């Protein structure tokens, strides 16, 4: 596991031993010493992360959308197949699989998208399938595993994630690929480190994190541990937002503009106005509803404004009929309301058959479907939809992660045009947008901090020498108490 070895005698000072362990721990690479020539089309940053991951054996590539992590991952898989002569399995979110197969073909890498185990035959190669289909396969036949969009683990139930971790715990080569995690997202980092067999999440938490006194149930990095923590993360991952994070030029990696339009519905506040609960007017009927930000109040508000928001979305879509539109909804009733108003629109929702979801998502990606209605939790991760430059949110949830990922489907490297994002919301929901905006600010600030730390760490990811004294000390005779 980790490379630190505590000598027996630190037992006398458990607290000190703990400090030292926190400082020294680094992951020992267990991959290939000799890395063959990699694909000539890899960009320098892709080459660097691929080499790093092959050398590490078990590693994470945190590459922001559009930096080409699937090509890097496929190339990693190709080398593992070649070195081990065993197939590699790549797990991808729904409908992303065929996309990867196309990409592999483009670069001459042997990878096949499959749904069942019968399709495994012939020489060892990369097999791509969906997370949902993992039960169709016996995993011990694979020499390596790639988790594509691995941050999806977060949206799985705990049991599913635990199952994945234990299924692959014996697989010698493991790779996780996803966008740069939110820096305070220790759950995500912990899941990655556990999946890769580097350290269990609880151990990671107790080493570097402390329960936040102000925020029950929340953890934050211990102050003296900040650098040490990122240094450790850098020992098993590479984190890239722009090629310059690894010292390469950023040419060609400038995103087009994004424009956000907010459309507000004036909610009728006389409905369900309720009655005063306190004060001398208690019990009296109120004239206006006083929405608050509790989950139940927000839901009630959303139901009240559902039709109006759907009208706004439909207006947007109608006013720009040449364009493909991606409509994000938060609830099924929002989706229904939007679908009723837009002829030809198709929806992808959770309860549908896998194959139907897949074919609709693929149709949209290929450009043959004009309007797609879905939820960030279903299609928000992994898909490359940069052919589309218009999206509308029929409503927002408090999840900044969902919002950010949803936008990133279209607003990514490779997008040639300005992206328009339309948000329909009721004036009574303004609080949600404010929360999203604040979280977005926090996210950027912390991401910056993490990038600096990771960049430094990657530049000199020196591993401290461990201290292993073997000789028993003898004290002089003259020393006495």
């Amino acid at each position, binding site marked *: 596991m980790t490379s*630190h070895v505590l000598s027996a005698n*630190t037992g006398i000072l458990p607290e*000190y031993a703990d400090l030292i362990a926190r*400082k020294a721990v680094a992951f020992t690479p267990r991959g290939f010493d000799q890395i063959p020539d990699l694909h000539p089309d890899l960009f320098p940053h892709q080459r660097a992360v691929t080499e790093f991951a092959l050398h590490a054996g078990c590693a994470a590539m945190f590459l922001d959308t559009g930096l080409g992590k699937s090509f890097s991952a496929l190339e990693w898989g190709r080398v593992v197949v070649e070195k081990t002569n065993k197939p590699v399995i790549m797990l991808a979110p729904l409908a992303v699989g065929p996309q990867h197969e196309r990409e592999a073909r483009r670069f001459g890498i042997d990878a096949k998208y499959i749904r069942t185990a019968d399709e495994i035959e012939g020489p060892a190669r990369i097999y791509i399938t969906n997370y949902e289909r993992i039960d169709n396969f016996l995993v011990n036949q694979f020499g390596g595993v790639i988790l594509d969009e691995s941050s999806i683990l977060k949206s799985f139930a705990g049991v599913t994630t635990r199952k994945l971790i234990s299924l692959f715990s014996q697989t010698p080569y493991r790779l996780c690929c996803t966008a740069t995690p939110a820096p305070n997202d220790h759950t995500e980092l912990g899941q990655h480190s556990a999946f890769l067999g580097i350290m269990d999440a609880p151990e990671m938490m107790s080493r570097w994190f402390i329960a936040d006194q102000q925020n029950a149930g929340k953890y934050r990095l211990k102050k003296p541990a900040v*650098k040490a923590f990122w240094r450790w993360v850098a020992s098993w991952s590479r984190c890239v937002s722009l090629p310059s994070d690894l010292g390469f030029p950023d040419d060609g990696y400038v995103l087009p503009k994004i424009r956000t339009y907010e459309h507000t519905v004036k909610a009728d506040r006389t409905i369900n106005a309720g009655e005063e609960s306190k004060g001398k007017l208690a019990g009296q009927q109120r004239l206006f509803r006083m929405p608050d930000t509790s989950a139940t109040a927000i839901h009630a508000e959303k139901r009240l404004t559902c039709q109006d928001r759907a009208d706004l979305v439909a207006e947007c879509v109608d006013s720009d009929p040449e364009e493909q539109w991606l409509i994000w909804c938060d609830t099924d009733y929002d989706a229904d309301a939007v679908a009723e108003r837009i002829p030809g629109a198709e929806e992808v929702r959770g309860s549908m058959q896998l194959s139907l979801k897949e074919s609709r998502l693929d149709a949209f990606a290929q450009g043959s479907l004009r309007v797609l209605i879905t939820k960030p939790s279903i299609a928000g991760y992994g898909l490359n939809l940069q052919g589309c430059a218009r999206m509308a949110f029929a409503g927002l949830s408090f999840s900044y992660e969902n919002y950010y990922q949803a936008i990133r489907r279209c607003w990514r490297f490779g997008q040639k045009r300005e992206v328009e994002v339309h948000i329909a919301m009721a004036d009574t929901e303004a609080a949600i947008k404010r929360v999203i905006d604040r979280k977005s600010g926090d996210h950027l600030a912390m991401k910056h901090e993490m990038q600096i730390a990771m960049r430094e760490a990657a530049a000199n990811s020196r591993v401290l020498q461990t*201290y292993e004294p*073997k*000789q028993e000390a*003898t004290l002089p005779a003259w020393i006495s108490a």
Partner: protein
Amino acid sequence: MTNVLDQSAGTSWNAYNADTVEFTAGMPTNSIDLSVYSPPFSSLYIYSESERDMGNVDSHDEFFATYRHLIREKLRITKPGRLTAIHVKDLVFYSNSSEKGDRGLYHFTGECIRVHVEEGWTFHRLITIWRCPVKEMQKTKSDRLLYKNFRTDAARTGGGMPEYIAVFRKWNEAMENTPAVVHPPSQFPLDVWQEWASPVWMDTHETNVLNVGAKNDEERHLCPMPLDLTQRIVLQYSNPGETVYSPFMGIGSEGVVAVREGRKFLGTELKPAYFKRAVRNLQSAEENQTAGDLLDTFSGDAA
């Protein structure tokens, strides 16, 4: 006893290549008469790539989190009523290492005092060691010392940085049982005392360090402790034959003084290269001591 990387001994000294926190924790209670040393000045210098190097830390907090353990164990092994003396100074920081982007001083000395007191020591004495600001300016080219700034923007200027020796005492009921440290007037007349009692030592030399013994290809120690300072502390605060301890002995400066002054010495050093040099220095100090003939181990001011 604790395990160490390496060890060596003469008749009046024992040196250990070890992590001092672990080593000190394994030492018997009330076994040391005096300790004198320079700790790593927080993260100012990194001495080695070892995870145990206290200079190899990311922050002052991290430094004190580990140093604190030594301070605690040092109290336990010191005889009741006796002292520990540490040689320290304050640290200058610059905008590039500061969150606020400001420039100023980090009161490292004050923090050391605070942590010693927190761990149970009694703050006993603070000696200010005068250092020449002109030499400091030449050496550091510090913005704080430039005449140019003094003429045009004097708010930027500071002044010279002194060194300090902070002394702490283990205060405890059993202290009457520990023999007193005594000074026969024949050897230590009043004027010696008056000089040593001075709150500011104006007459010691920063170049008075162990310098010989560094072979050409060996790296010099980054900051050896001046011998003249050590000598005064050893003479004022211990009797001949008593045990002096240096938890961070480096190339052995405190040990050389202790042996030369007829004390016993115990020291730990983490870095194998420094440890080996300390052993050589201690060996030659002991030979010279028995020969009664001191070679010129001191580089002196002229060097």
